[in-house]
């Protein structure tokens, strides 16, 4: 399934790519990953199995995060998660949306939660999907995805990475690989790869800042600051963010929020919304209807 025709929006001087369809309650999706990775690259395409089916009931919106997909890189070399969260909040404001149903996956689950914690007025509900970045404890990406057996930036490498994220390797279609290769080939994306790798902004700036702010984010969640309905959806067979981490995250939310649900989908790795889109979309539809 493909996305509708893309549009452009100036968001605080960052040219931002986004896709939208449908009418009604707004759902905004935030995908995972981060700028500057050379062996994989997320983009709005990540939600290609969800945007149009959910647009039959709601106004569904996917945007490329700062530095990812086709959106401009962060200004002034601010290659931080804080810049990504700021840009995401600014995007929702620039779109003049009423409070949205925010859906974040993986690193996008962290960004969505942080955005909600800093901008309650923008968010009606939160859905977090397989987010090792947000959940307490450590991620196992570096174990599962260590040193792909193909050169970085090749289709073979991309396919290997996403197949190892997934339960069923067949879900990694040529179309998915092509979408990743398209992003990897964009000159501004290659610049982010240089910044994060050769110029070491990944290890000097991005990761330490994320670690500090993650501590703060978890403290805020433990203090009950989220104050919005929340659901956690987890692919049962994700080896990079295992089920125990989803349970721990759900328990943090549920301590303070009555409207907290936890859903586990079998035979799914890191991307349950791509491996089982019909059931994921059904959970999303019933969730938004229940909150709306």
């Amino acid at each position, binding site marked *: 399934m493909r996305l509708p025709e893309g549009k452009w929006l100036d968001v605080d001087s960052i040219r931002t790519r986004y896709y939208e369809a449908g009418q009604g309650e707004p759902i905004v999706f935030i995908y995972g990953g981060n700028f500057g990775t050379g062996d994989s690259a997320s983009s709005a395409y990540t939600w290609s199995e969800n945007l149009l089916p959910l647009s039959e009931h709601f106004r569904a919106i996917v945007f490329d995060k700062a530095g990812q997909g086709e959106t401009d890189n962060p200004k002034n070399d601010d290659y931080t998660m804080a810049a990504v969260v700021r840009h995401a909040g600014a995007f929702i404001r620039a779109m003049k949306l009423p409070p949205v149903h925010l859906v974040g996956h993986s690193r996008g689950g962290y960004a969505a939660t942080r955005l909600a914690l800093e901008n309650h007025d923008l968010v009606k509900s939160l859905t977090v999907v397989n987010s090792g970045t947000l959940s307490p404890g450590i991620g196992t990406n570096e174990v599962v995805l260590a040193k792909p057996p193909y050169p970085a930036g090749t289709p073979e490498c991309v396919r290997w990475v996403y197949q190892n994220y997934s339960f069923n390797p067949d879900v990694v279609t040529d179309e998915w690989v092509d979408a990743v290769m398209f992003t990897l080939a964009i000159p501004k994306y290659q610049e982010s790869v240089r910044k994060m790798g050769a110029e070491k902004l990944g290890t000097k700036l991005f990761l330490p800042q994320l670690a500090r702010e993650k501590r703060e984010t978890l403290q805020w969640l433990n203090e009950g600051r989220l104050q919005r309905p929340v659901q956690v959806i987890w692919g049962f067979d994700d080896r990079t963010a295992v089920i125990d981490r989803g*349970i721990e995250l759900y328990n943090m939310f549920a301590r303070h929020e009555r409207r907290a649900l936890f859903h586990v989908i*079998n035979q799914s790795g890191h991307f349950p919304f791509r491996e089982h889109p019909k059931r994921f979309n*059904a959970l999303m539809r019933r969730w938004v209807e229940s909150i709306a």
Partner: protein
Amino acid sequence: MMVFIHGGVPGITPYASGPHIWGPLPKNARTVSVSGQTVDAMTQSVRKAIEGKCHLVGHDLGGLLALNLAIEAPQLVSAVTAVASVAAAPSGDGVPNTTLAHPPKPLGSRESQRWALERVSYSHAHVSEELVDACVAAAAKQSPMTLKAYEDEFVPSVMKAKSRFYEVCRTDGIKVPCQVIWGSHDPLTTLDQGLWLFRGLAQKQRVAQFHVINRAGALPFREEPAAFFQVLNAFADGI
């Protein structure tokens, strides 16, 4: 069509369960009354009561009956939802659960029914006069299982049914989509037991899901009906 199967053993479970326990149900749903002294006999009572292919929604013991019927006659079952099904969940060498150990006597009284319903819940808010009335009326109508029948026939039949169920999960797999719904604060069980029930199902059945409803005990469909039916309907939509 969804068919709702209650749990509970008359005379043994301190609150009198029955079709009334579900509360208001959607139009495409109906309930069955379970009868019999063993899991197999109870399963037959469900089988006789259903017409056509149904999504079976079973609470506690009713969940085990639904799974048993899905093994025996998958052609009659489109999906199974097991709700707070302590009866179907693994329990190996656990310590006794004392939540309902000392009910006020007599068991069928309003005081006793209210006591038990409150004890198995996260909050007493759902235990209305109407529910207590329905439980008292059900208790008066039920033929209580004797302790001898419970020990000699019923408990061994549960162990046999569970053993068969987990063998099928490991070998051929349950042939229909299955989901497990658990209350986050169920005093009769742990979240881990619910997750292990799901793990059993998930071994061979691709379409398997596990859900937790927050601030609910052993009767999540009563305490959080909106969340319960949201999850139930999403599963039906998705399969």
